[in-house]
């Protein structure tokens, strides 16, 4: 087998050295009845060209030749080639968690840079070096707020990503916690009056996403006032952190958590992505996940190491702040390289393009007879639009034109029947947008005509 370095003579020599005649003897410690007698029933072995063919087939049966207007927590942005040139370097790809700092300084410094970039972007003091993804980061933020406040009530905005809400529910199901959902207002933003009535003296955390699941931007100052008045902590969740290049960071929040996939991490059918969690200096010791700290070596040189490990499972075991061990470092490195490449001006320019394109698409779809934009508040690169008729039929018509036209929201919000969540990033060309808009118009015509017919008959 091409991956195995041992030769048969090596194997024989090693067996000899340990006084065994056959390798089977090494497995005699497993009770005979538990040992497998037959070959595993798995396919293979496949040579390299055969393997390529196998996965080429999978690739053919994918949506790679479609224009996709899907966002909802996973964003397709252009990925500069330098990212793969760097993250495929074996020194990054094939190293372990940097427990041995002296031979892991590259990973440690890169993670320290990731922590810094996330802190700068979110307006927080400190950030950790990654969590599994945005959904688990939101959950970790909630657990952290519960530890900090010693309270056990949690309020989540209904506009927090529905799958993030589900993850929080899963994790909290045996923690004796009450989870309350707080609704959105007609603007698409959180309903402040409703929030005020649901936050009380037992509330540990209020989780609000911005841009929220509808793509709508929230104003933090008023939300923070309501939350802090009751001594609860405000958790700001971000699924599209590119927005932070143009939108004021949630400095009023106590914890900012989210998903950094948007920074050049492949969409890859949902993962691997990279969660992050940032907070204020005073809360550092209740943070989950790995933290890299700056220090000195015995000769006074600057260096980096994992730090505050007394929060973690390998030291604290059942009392740890989290059970997380292996996290998402390589994806954090991917995001770091992306942020560095674009840099201050590039990231802002990119965010402006996303904003312009989404505004263009929203304006044009808003003009389609029978379509409407239900939420008036500002959005970034995603927005909700109501279809002029049955959205399943509209999506099918768009698919004919090789366009995946958005996410039907009814699946998560029964009250939003025929509403689509549409995401437009810089990679969707104007030509594709115009093709999509044209389909909407064509689709709306028969609908408008049938309405007119009905009116005429009536």
């Amino acid at each position, binding site marked *: *087998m091409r*991956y*195995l*370095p041992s030769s048969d003579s090596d194997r024989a020599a090693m*067996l000899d050295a340990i006084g065994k005649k056959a390798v089977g003897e*090494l497995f005699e410690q497993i009770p005979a009845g*538990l040992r*497998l007698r037959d070959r*595993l*029933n*798995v396919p293979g*072995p496949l040579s390299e060209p055969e*393997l*390529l063919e196998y996965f080429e087939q*999978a690739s053919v049966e*994918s*949506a*790679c030749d*479609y224009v996709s207007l899907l966002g909802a927590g996973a964003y397709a942005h252009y990925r500069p080639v330098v990212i793969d040139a*760097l993250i495929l370097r*074996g*020194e990054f*790809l094939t190293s372990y*968690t940097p427990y041995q700092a*002296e*031979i*892991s*300084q590259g990973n440690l*410094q890169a993670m320290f*840079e990731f922590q810094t970039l996330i802190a700068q972007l979110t307006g927080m003091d*400190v*950030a950790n070096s*990654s969590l*599994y993804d945005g959904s688990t980061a939101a959950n970790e933020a909630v657990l952290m707020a519960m530890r900090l406040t010693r309270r056990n009530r949690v309020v989540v905005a209904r506009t927090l990503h529905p799958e993030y809400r589900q*993850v929080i529910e*899963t994790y909290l199901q045996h923690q004796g916690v009450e989870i309350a959902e707080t609704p959105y207002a007609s603007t698409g933003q959180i309903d402040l009056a409703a929030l005020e009535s649901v936050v009380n003296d037992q509330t540990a955390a209020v989780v609000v996403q911005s841009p929220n699941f509808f793509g709508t*931007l929230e*104003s933090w100052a008023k939300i923070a006032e309501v939350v802090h008045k009751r001594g609860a902590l405000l958790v700001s969740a971000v699924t599209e952190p590119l927005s*932070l290049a*143009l939108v004021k960071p949630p400095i009023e929040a106590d914890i900012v958590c989210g998903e950094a996939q948007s920074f050049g991490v492949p969409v*890859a059918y949902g*993962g691997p992505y990279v969660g992050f969690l940032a907070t204020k200096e005073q809360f550092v010791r209740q943070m989950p996940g*790995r933290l890299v*700290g700056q220090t000195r*070596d015995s000769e006074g*040189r600057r260096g980096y*190491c994992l730090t505050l490990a007394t929060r973690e*499972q390998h030291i*604290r075991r*059942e009392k740890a702040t989290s059970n*997380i*061990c*292996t996290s998402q*470092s390589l*994806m954090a490195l991917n995001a770091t390289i992306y942020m*560095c*490449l674009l840099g*201050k001006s590039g990231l802002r320019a990119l965010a402006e393009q996303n904003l312009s394109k989404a*505004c263009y698409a929203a304006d044009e779809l808003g003009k389609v007879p029978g379509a409407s934009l239900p939420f008036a508040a*500002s959005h970034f690169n995603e927005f909700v639009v109501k279809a002029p008729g049955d959205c399943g039929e509209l999506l099918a018509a768009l698919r004919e034109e090789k366009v995946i036209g958005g996410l039907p929201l009814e699946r998560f919000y029964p009250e939003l029947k025929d509403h689509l969540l549409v995401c437009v990033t810089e990679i969707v060309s104007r030509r594709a947008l115009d093709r999509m808009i044209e389909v909407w118009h064509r689709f709306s015509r028969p609908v408008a005509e049938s309405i007119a017919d009905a009116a005429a008959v009536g």
Partner: protein
Amino acid sequence: MTNRIKNATPHMTRNEDLIFERSKPGKTGAELRPLDVPARSAERTLGDLYRRDIEGFPEISELDVMRHFTRLSTWNYSIDAGVYPLGSCTMKYNPRLNETVARFAGLGTDHPYTPEQLSQGCLKVLADTQRALLEITGMDAISLQPAAGAQGELTGLLMIRACLRERGDARRFILVPDSAHGTNPASVTISGYEALPLKSDSRGCVDLAELERLMSTEVAGLMLTNPNTLGIFEQDIQKICEIVHIKGGLVYMDGANMNALVGVAQPGRFGIDVMHLNLHKTFSTPHGGGGPGSGPVAVKRVLEPYLPAPTVEEQPDGSVRLNYDRPRSVGRVRAFYGNFGMAVRALAYILAYGPEGLRQATEDAVLNANYVKERIRECYDLPYDAPSMHECVFSDKRQESRGVRTGDIAKRLIDYGFHPYTTSFPLIVHGALMIEPTESAGKVELDALIDALRSIAQEAQESPELVQTAPHTTRVSRLDEVGAARKPVLRWKPAAP
């Protein structure tokens, strides 16, 4: 001194400041395609929400980025460079082909909410991975949703809890052997149970009498690592499962050590009810300096109804669909379907090996561990002298009298050109040296590792300070970890003007 070191020669590496210290106003490393729609003024569109600046964010050219991260990379040890005998971590070769196929159009680019009929390629990869993993484990059903081993543990515990609750028998405790990995008790807490420590016996295995004594109707189950963290197969596994089952509990198996079993034994026949796999260990997906991982959780029929939703299901017509209609599910543990890209790589690994190859890899891994053990046992204390599977665990007892601890030996191994073994785990071994060579080391490399470990044992006797102050050849010497924790500096800040 240095002539003993045959495997490595110190070489020059370049110094490199933080990326922020390279920054100069006006530089950028990426240019955008011209905007093809009318430009919107962000300031006007966003009003009060408009941000003027990302303070401190770097401004650098593409070449700066390339040099910066390339230099950083040269400061890391890696599997590609050499043997990585980090116990419990299974640092085996990560085939490059797997990186190529994971980036294929569709597999690397499909959106998770793509309509199912358009993403059959991705769904079939998930289904094929599931089928192969079920065959390898001998379990009945599986979810690839957990993002790493620890999340697989939590998912499994939640399923145990859901099952017992349906039986009207919630219970309070989970038994966790004192040799268990730290994630085990940490996961127990999050699942809402309390971890009840189970003492190991003189063999380093589950003490049956102690298990009988502690197993009560208040105990929901046992979390067992098999082979255990000493690299020893728990021979009483069937009896252990029986003791737990008779009292109405369920058995969770931490499958982090599956590299000892693939193609040789299926945990599904042991009597366990639920287990996780670490695709980033046994199935070669790269560790990436600390993730991504993937921790599929596999169950026997009793626990199937509780798997996280959605499940990935093959249809009679050969298509694959996502089933969200799982009313008894414990819920969702992660957005979307888990670390999909890791399933792609794991499947590529399994297909490349095929059934015989997988077994051969297991045999090589176990042979290598036994060979290393045999050849260094005269130099190091072996607290549990039982047959080894894929790893062996020594203690630093013989070196301790000279003031040399496992951490020192590990650091000295760096000078010899190797990544250290795992130190100080499992906790039941005083000053543990946990060595897992994996199958990805040939005899020549193992002999070099063995020579290094023997040589260091000698150094510990002759010149202990040489070992205590190691490493001597790295770009930084031992770092002040205590200082780092006392006054944490967790980010760069611009120098005060």
